[in-house]
């Protein structure tokens, strides 16, 4: 049970505080309701570029990191399709520095041509490192546009084309900031060795005077229902063939999220998953195989991916996956297997909330979903999933016409 206090400032900033006196530290997390789905299709990668720029100095403070480090703090951030999340931990006695820094970069950034130019370069190298210079690194650049035709989930957070980032101007950067970074578009959480009253006082002091800005209205194109199976074959310089399959599913806040999540755990949660047992241990078709759901705000994907063993035909491997998955549509999962995936979830939930930084980030995220208190109901929601519910979601979603399949073939192998 994570108990917390909540306050909303006049400018719309929501604040959540959870006290934990077992630590000398405080964690501070701030979530902005902006992700790569909010980007112009001709200017993708902006949200992530911003995450970089946010460390380059703000309205009144030339450097972000140095004052934080002097106070013994440490910080980082991440961007995904839906959100941008900044976080730090700092000795509790110096927490005010955290409020000072975070509020100033909400107030305004130091938009400099030089910083922009450098961060563009850094991101190009990030793109090279993660997407180009890695075997299978570009998979999401290929799979996403297969699954999504209209919705901005069709590009990854880094952007669909790195030239978008190279072309961004300072004006565009500043527009993006003022139309997304604003108190009513953010959620702040503070966890650790701090009294709620003191945290609220500091929040009022530092964030209270940041004025509300007009947030760009979000009018995202809806993704049409997929009606036909899609298959794409790529041939690349990779050591072995790999298979990727994506089915459309629902939103993170839909009731069947929990059922779907457990369904993927039945398939591939740990080494005892069905796909691993059947296709790696028994049939020796895949060397590795995983399944997960993306859990996005807008309708997401259920993804299964695996690397093939030497000498296995990729279409046969695909058939084998379908066979295992199809079984979920017809036969009831035994109770002890359901218990297994639920127990595993409960343990991971307890572990993840044994640390103040995770607690801070989770509080932000659940508040973003609608209500931070819902976090405490998660275990029960997972527990309430029945084998019949799994059959139902399997029937609803796991159909060939709802699926995109990517055959990622090895050129080397093809040559042999």
């Amino acid at each position: 049970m994570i108990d917390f206090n909540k306050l909303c400032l006049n400018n719309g900033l929501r604040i959540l505080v959870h006290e934990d006196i077992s630590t000398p530290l405080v964690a501070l997390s701030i979530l902005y309701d902006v992700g790569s789905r909010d980007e112009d299709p001709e200017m993708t990668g902006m949200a992530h570029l911003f995450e970089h720029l946010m460390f380059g100095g703000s309205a009144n403070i030339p450097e972000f990191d140095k004052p934080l480090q002097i106070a013994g703090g440490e910080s980082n951030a991440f961007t995904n399709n839906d959100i941008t999340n900044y976080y730090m931990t700092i000795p509790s006695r110096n927490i005010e520095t955290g409020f000072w820094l975070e509020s100033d970069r909400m107030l305004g950034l130091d938009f400099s041509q030089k910083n922009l130019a450098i961060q563009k370069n850094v991101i190009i190298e990030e793109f090279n490192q993660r997407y180009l210079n890695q075997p299978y690194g570009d998979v999401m650049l290929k799979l996403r546009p297969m699954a999504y035709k209209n919705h901005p989930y069709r590009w990854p957070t880094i952007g669909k084309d790195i030239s978008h980032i190279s072309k961004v101007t300072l004006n565009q950067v500043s527009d993006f900031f003022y139309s997304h970074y604003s108190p009513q578009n953010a959620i702040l959480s503070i966890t650790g060795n701090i009294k709620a009253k003191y945290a609220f006082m500091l929040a009022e002091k530092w964030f209270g005077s940041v004025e509300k800005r007009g947030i760009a209205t979000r009018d995202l194109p809806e993704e049409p229902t997929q009606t036909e199976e899609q298959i794409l074959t790529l041939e690349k310089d990779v050591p072995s063939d790999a298979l990727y399959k994506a089915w459309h599913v629902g939103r993170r806040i839909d009731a069947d999220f929990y059922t779907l999540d457990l369904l993927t755990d039945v398939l591939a949660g740990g080494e005892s998953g069905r796909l691993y047992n059947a296709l790696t241990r028994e049939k020796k078709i895949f060397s590795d195989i995983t399944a997960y759901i993306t859990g996005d705000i807008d309708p997401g994907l259920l993804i299964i991916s695996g690397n093939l063993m030497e000498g296995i035909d990729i279409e046969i491997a695909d058939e084998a996956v379908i066979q295992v998955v199809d079984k979920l549509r017809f036969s009831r999962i035994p109770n002890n297997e359901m218990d297994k995936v639920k127990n595993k979830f409960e343990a991971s939930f307890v572990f993840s909330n044994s640390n103040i930084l995770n607690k801070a980030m989770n509080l932000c995220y659940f508040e973003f979903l609608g209500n931070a208190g819902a976090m405490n109901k998660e275990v029960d929601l997972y527990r309430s999933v029945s084998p019949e519910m799994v059959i139902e979601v399997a029937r609803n979603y796991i159909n060939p016409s709802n699926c995109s399949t990517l055959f990622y073939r090895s050129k080397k192998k093809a040559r042999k």
Partner: protein
Amino acid sequence: MRPLQRKIQPEIMPVSIGKIPEPDSFSLSNGVPVYLIEAGSEEIMRIDFIFKAGLIHEDLSLQASTANMMLLEGTQNYNAVTLNRLIDYYGLYLNLLVEKDRAGVIIFFLNRHIEKVLEICQEVFHRSVFPEDELKVLLNKRLQWYHIDRERVRNLAMDQFFESVFGKDHPYGRQVQLQDFNKISPPLLVEFHSKFYSPENMAIIIAGKIHSDTITLLNKYFGIFPSKATVPMEAGNVIKSEKRKKTFIEKKGAVQTAIRLGSTTISKRHPDYPGMLVLNTILGGYFGSRLMKNIREEKGYTYGISSVVSSFELSGYKIIGTEVGKKYTKKALDEIYKEIMLLQTRHVEFVELKVVKNLMLGEIVRMFDGPFAMAESFKSAWEFGLDNNYYYNLAQKIEIIEPDEIMELAKTYYDIDELYEIIAGSR
């Protein structure tokens, strides 16, 4: 009310590491040492089972790591499928761990499952059977990983770095070769397992809200196996660095080049080590380090660059690592050498040193925040025969070190002619 002073940092207090407790220690009836770290508020525990079963003990590449990874692939009482189902059923998070000197298992669990956890671990450590079929699956999988690894310039450079620095025949430096995958067989693993996964090579570190039956249960499941006399490590494991300092590894089509620079150095047991850590942090140990500032934040050559000082049982080493855009390779190298020389010739400025001192002290606070972090930190001192006093000494050194000493350390330990320069990429 006074207007808000946004340009001035709120007053900060000195970062203090507070009190770091030593774990309680005792021995099982067969002499296995156990360390208990009571901390945290959740009903969860972490147990580290540590064995002297690392790479240093293997005769053949892949032997130590495969022996470790096969621990969960079948025991006398449970086959691989059942064993893994049990692990998942009880919600256990079980990490296999193989390092140069040690190997073992770290397990996280909800306290109510303690007896089941220990029963499973007893099976895993004392009744492992290394079935042929599971071994085949595992080796095939590892062979695939191996091929994928060899596609990454960072792995090519890193493996070559260890080979150059520790020698191609030493277990610290030996690179895995394709033919090694054919040499591993069940008997080799059984032999390795019985020799090294034994009570005399074992230690246990437990952290969390410790269950009251823990000690009794540990004796029940692990105290019953007799210890043999320990055999000293065979001599012949002599570190012999390669003569050639510069190596280029061709990787066709690579858009980035991996750079690894470094050499052997003092280990954690050496009195200069804490000072070395301060020096390393200034050079490349944090986001605002000189290498990051210069090569990422000023030039944009890379997504990241870092330097590390680390220790194995027989030797310490230092390494600078980065992946840079192909066309920046030469420039990045020049800048790295320039930064090292700057540390040898110019005093670190007060503000920079102050930042580094405080962030390092903050890091020590984080290293003891919560039971799991405490276990990790204690372990990394204990492995070198040290205890948590090491961290007090480190904190003290951080507080008192002066620019003079940092410059001396840079001159003593960063002789540029001694550094190995490994480059992997396309020409």
